[in-house]
């Protein structure tokens, strides 16, 4: 007799959920969330962005603000949003290649940020 898709879906999503909760709890118990520097303390000379916005900080460091903070990120978002139409227009291989270039670019910026800045939480 065929198994119900509900049972299969519930099982695999259930296992994934348990794994996620265990990982999240383990991280929360092991690495406390940072608070940064109090705004009553003497001013820090250098602020480091959280890792998620690391690529953004690198762009702002090396490019003029209008380019690094507005044009470049907007182009990345537009490229991401237009992916289905890009692939349709340029063909599977070229469209996917453009997407992978965007991903690699963001990853390079992230690694650059991690190497350049003292990063963590």
């Amino acid at each position, binding site marked *: 007799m065929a198994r119900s*898709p*509900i049972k*299969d*879906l519930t099982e*695999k*999503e259930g*296992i*994934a*959920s348990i794994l*996620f*909760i265990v*990982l*999240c*709890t383990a*991280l*929360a*118990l092991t*690495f*406390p*969330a940072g*608070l*940064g*520097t*109090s*705004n*009553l*303390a003497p*001013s*820090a000379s250098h*602020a*480091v*962005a*959280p890792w*998620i*916005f690391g690529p953004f900080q690198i762009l*702002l460091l090396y490019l003029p*603000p*209008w380019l690094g*903070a*507005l044009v470049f990120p907007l182009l990345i*978002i537009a490229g*991401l*949003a237009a*992916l*289905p*139409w890009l*692939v*349709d227009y340029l063909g*599977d291989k070229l469209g*996917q290649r453009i*997407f992978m270039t965007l*991903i690699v670019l963001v990853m390079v910026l992230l690694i650059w940020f991690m190497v350049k800045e003292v990063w963590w939480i």
Partner: protein
Amino acid sequence: MKDQKNFVHHIRPIFVPSKALSVLYTFCLGGVSFLAFVVLGVTGLLLMFHYQPGNSTGFSSLLTLASVIPYGGMIRNLHYWAGQLMVVTVNLHMLRVVWTHSYKPPKQLNWLVGVALLMLILFLDFTGYLLIGSQESGAAATVAVNILGLIPGLGIGLAQVLFGEPSAISGSTLVVYVWHCFALPMIALFLQLYHFWRIRRDGGVRPL
């Protein structure tokens, strides 16, 4: 797929392609991202009982939360890590969608909804970072306000709408608090429900 147009049928689908039942097809990344959103909602609600937004109160209320309130530090740690993990799982989910070509017609609208959700989640993360009310948050708020100021005509008004008083020194303002705790989660929740519904509406996941 006429039978699967109702939202209820996403929860209890009549047909699911057998390939889609394999863990290795989706890695459950969409579902896990939603679970992270739920964890963030629950822990965020608990944090709201003690957190007070403001230049002088934001940081100190977090210190109190971490050191005085029972399990306050643990709740905040869970909120923080669920947020970080959600960014990771959402990005991996997006990569999986590209890998399996699940963005192609008729699913291009759902892809756009997914991109909008990614932006919302990054902005939620950013506003959460501002609410810490530290010097670093203040610097981040200043950078964000200056960036928005570069947009001709709209920038300054947009900065006021998104961050409140631009002269705030800590980043923790009532405006940011309302965006982070109510407006953005509500928009994200609505878009997620629509995103889920469209998966079945567009024909579910396709085999490779």
